[in-house]
């Protein structure tokens, strides 16, 4: 019998009280228990970045975090980026820049870029590339993603 604990967590602004197995990873809580399948499960080693979510605004790898350690915290997944009736500017910019091919890395990139622009609203191209260094894309070669992040930064500045 796997030990269970009670936890409270806010995901995309919605509070949940849950019983979780202590050995459940955050990504499994998000996808399996809460049905938020936008977050992607890639390498499960912390390398690929597909599972990146924000915990209290900080991007982390949900595959390397225990759900129970997020008790009392605020989680944001890609589903939480969307504004009431429109896409988040980064989501729209990724579409406009053709930054999506298979799309598997996109949710992780979006979460990383969201946190990055909050901290650094006016970045250079090199800073964008450094911010996305841990988000592996095997289709587009990154130029689209970098262009999209820069476009949002420039748009916000004008």
């Amino acid at each position, binding site marked *: 019998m796997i030990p269970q*604990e009670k936890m409270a967590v806010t995901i995309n602004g919605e509070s949940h009280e849950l019983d979780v197995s*202590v*050995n459940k990873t955050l990504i499994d809580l998000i996808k399996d228990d809460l049905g938020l399948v936008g977050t992607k499960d890639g390498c499960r080693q*912390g390398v690929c970045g597909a599972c990146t979510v924000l915990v209290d605004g900080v991007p982390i790898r949900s595959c390397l975090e225990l759900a*129970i350690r997020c008790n009392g915290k605020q989680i944001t997944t890609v589903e939480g980026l969307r504004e009431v009736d429109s896409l988040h500017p980064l989501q729209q910019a990724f579409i406009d820049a053709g930054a999506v091919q298979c799309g598997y890395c996109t949710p992780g990139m979006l979460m990383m870029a969201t946190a990055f622009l909050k901290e650094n609203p006016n970045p250079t191209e090199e800073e964008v590339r450094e911010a996305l260094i*841990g988000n592996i894309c095997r289709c587009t070669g990154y130029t689209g993603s970098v262009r999209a992040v820069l476009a949002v930064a420039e748009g916000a500045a004008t």
Partner: protein
Amino acid sequence: MSLPSFDYRAPETVEKAIALRQEYGDDALLMAGGLVVMILLRERLVQPRTIINLSEISALRRIDLSKKTLRIGAAVTHSEITNSEQVRSVAPMLCEACGRVGSPAIRNMGTLGGSICHGDGASDPAPALLALDADAMVSGPSGQRRIPLKNFFRGVFSTELEEDELLTELLVPVPAKGTQTRFMKYTSTSEEAFATVTVAVSLLRKRSGKCAEVRIGLGSVAPIPMRALEAENLLRGKVATKELIADVASAAALEADPASDAQASEQYRRDMTAVWVRRVLEDMLL
């Protein structure tokens, strides 16, 4: 694949964590940032009865700077160190080293103490801490002990930490005025990869130009993070010249003890040790 079953404890004080260590011994595994432990669990390389989570112990998450000593709690993350003005004011090399660990999200999770306790020769912060002459502060059932970091690493993934002890802080002496430091991580593949070689140097020159204090930390070129003591001895008390620096670099490469792996051969790592020790020292001294 899901994780194996375990019990979970999250003590809020160092004392409670040590009591749990005594209770479970090697049936328990400590988790700070979780990066290493989660992978070991998933790969079934460890199967502990209990995970002791350290992230709720606020005493392990503090950075404190006094006149003589910078104290960094073992559960402070790499990102927190990189962004800390206190750390940057006395040990900018440590900010740089922590800023080169993996990628940004990894730095948000991984902790300085975790990196040290893992005892991995490829740790990025370890060579910087060695060059800064840091000590490890360890708590156990019978009190605290202070271990010079250069004596802390025992062998591959093995440290001086006993099964009922906890690393609580890294203590960095505030460098004397005029101390120069440099940190360099060289990767032959991509930036976020493990290093091929890491070089961290701290040195203090006298007015005469002689190198009074010299410490050279090396990473990824031995089973454990190491000091290049022979190389240091060659340089100490001397005025640096191009020729002397070349000899110092060769000595460092000779005392390195690298292994071949998928990223680099033993010989390549040794060669790169000589190249980067030479370049770093030339940059600092010529």
